[in-house]
């Protein structure tokens, strides 16, 4: 076990990426994630890696496409408006089955919105901001330490499944400092990439990285093949943390920053005698539906707490499928819900005063 250091979430992501073997970073500045690029700009030249500030997010994500196609461990990061600009490129990366890591440190939207933390890009991340049938594997850390471990895992998952992995954070997680350890235990695997375009050396047929299929049947075939991969991710990679769930009558659910606030709220509720529990999805896609299904067997009600107008709540409803009412509480635009608001919402629900 190594020493604890005090680090911003954004910097922790950058350091973890380097630990995971990422040597290529392409990005474009945007608040509140600029520290990732700043860290990379400092570190990469020292370790023979590449930091390149692209002229736009569109360009950055396409540099990622090229580098990933050439077999590199590569990352980009941005925040909400910038992520929208990456939508097309992300769809291409998914369609070409290229591995990479994409960080979104979410801020309030729509439009330029604000620079304060939000979770209103959940839909974009999990349902596809880009066009076509595809998925990202979406990881949602809720502490600086987890930003480290999930970043490292993100690179492994990306290579293992040849899939773009998104790390979905928010301004709070990106900007806050917490003690964090970098252990060498979870250093990641090396994956063979015989498909990469690095020159044939005239020793093999040329490799082609491509997303175009003029015959619909062929295109459908690739999509269905990819679906199999998605199925296996659903089988094997779901991550979720629960607490107080055994006897929970009121199941609160949140990810990322809001899950920490929910934690505080649930402590309070338990103190006051409410049987409250927590489901915290760590993978947002694949979504831990089975945990909710199980919890629905004894829960009186669910409550999704989000820093948005309500997005994950739909996935909870899909999982619960009518077995129990699913409520929502959220603040948005950079406003962060308080534990007290959540406690009072749960009391309303318990008292039958909340409309679903």
């Amino acid at each position: 076990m190594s020493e604890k250091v005090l680090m911003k979430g954004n910097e922790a992501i950058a350091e973890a990426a380097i630990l995971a073997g990422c040597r290529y970073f392409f990005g474009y500045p945007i608040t509140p994630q600029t520290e990732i690029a700043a860290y990379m700009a400092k570190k990469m030249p020292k370790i023979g890696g590449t930091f390149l500030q692209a002229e736009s997010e569109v360009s950055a994500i396409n540099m990622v496409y090229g580098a990933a196609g050439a077999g590199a461990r590569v990352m980009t990061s941005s925040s909400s408006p910038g992520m929208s600009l990456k939508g097309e490129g992300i769809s291409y990366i998914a369609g070409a089955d290229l591995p990479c890591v994409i960080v979104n440190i979410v801020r309030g939207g729509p439009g330029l919105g604000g620079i304060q933390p939000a979770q209103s890009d959940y839909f974009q991340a999990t349902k596809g901001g880009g066009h076509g049938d595809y998925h990202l594997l979406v990881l949602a850390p809720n502490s600086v330490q987890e930003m480290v471990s999930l970043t490292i895992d993100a690179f492994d998952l990306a290579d293992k499944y040849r899939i773009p992995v998104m790390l979905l954070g928010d301004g709070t997680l990106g900007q806050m400092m917490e003690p964090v350890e970098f252990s060498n235990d979870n250093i990641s695997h090396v994956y063979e990439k015989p498909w990469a375009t690095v020159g044939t050396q005239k020793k093999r047929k040329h490799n082609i990285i491509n997303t175009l299929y003029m015959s619909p049947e062929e295109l459908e075939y690739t999509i269905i093949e990819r679906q199999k991969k998605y199925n296996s991710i659903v089988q094997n990679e779901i991550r979720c943390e629960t607490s107080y769930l055994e006897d929970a009558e009121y199941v609160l659910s949140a990810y990322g920053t809001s899950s920490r606030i929910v934690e505080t709220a649930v402590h309070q509720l338990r103190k006051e005698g409410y049987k409250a529990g927590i489901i915290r999805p760590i993978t947002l896609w694949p979504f831990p539906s089975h945990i909710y299904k199980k919890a629905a067997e004894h829960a009186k009600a669910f409550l999704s707490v989000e820093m948005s107008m309500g997005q994950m709540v739909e996935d909870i409803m899909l999982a619960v499928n009518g077995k129990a009412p699913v409520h929502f509480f959220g603040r948005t635009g950079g406003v962060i819900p308080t534990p007290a608001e959540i406690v009072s919402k749960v009391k309303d629900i318990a008292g039958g005063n909340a409309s679903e």
Partner: protein
Amino acid sequence: MKSENIIIAGFGGQGILFAGKLLAYAAMVAGKEISWLPSYGPEMRGGTANCHVVISEEPVGSPIIVNPDVLISMNRPSLDKFENSVIEGGTIVVDKSLIDRKVTRTDVRVKYVEATKIAMELGNAALANMVMVGAFLKETGAFILDEIKDAIVKNIPKTKQALAEIDIKAMVAGYNA
């Protein structure tokens, strides 16, 4: 050292975030669970800057402080903004040289320090943050003086340790003010 929820607030450029980081670091070294959360973005230049430091015996839940135990206020707008959020029985430390009004609440402990004035006497107004940290220590007993001294030394690059000494001097001055 006690568990505390501390908000430090003032103008951008007053070293607010660094002061917060020192406390967080010292607490970390002392084995506490901590989080440090800054306000960020363009409003840091010119506008108000603040940071939230949570020091706790248990893993930190929400890093956002709604009702601080302690408010360290280094300008008037921040006092206006946060005064009423401090918990009953909490503490407010005020830079008297920059804030031209008194704290109106009566259910909190208040410490007034001529932080900027003291800092200027030490040769640099930018040391006011350290003076405030010293005053905070004395007032709350949240840390031992040496813990913070150590934090200062560790959080300043090796090449600039001269600065650390000045910082410590300012901090001690605040402690004794």
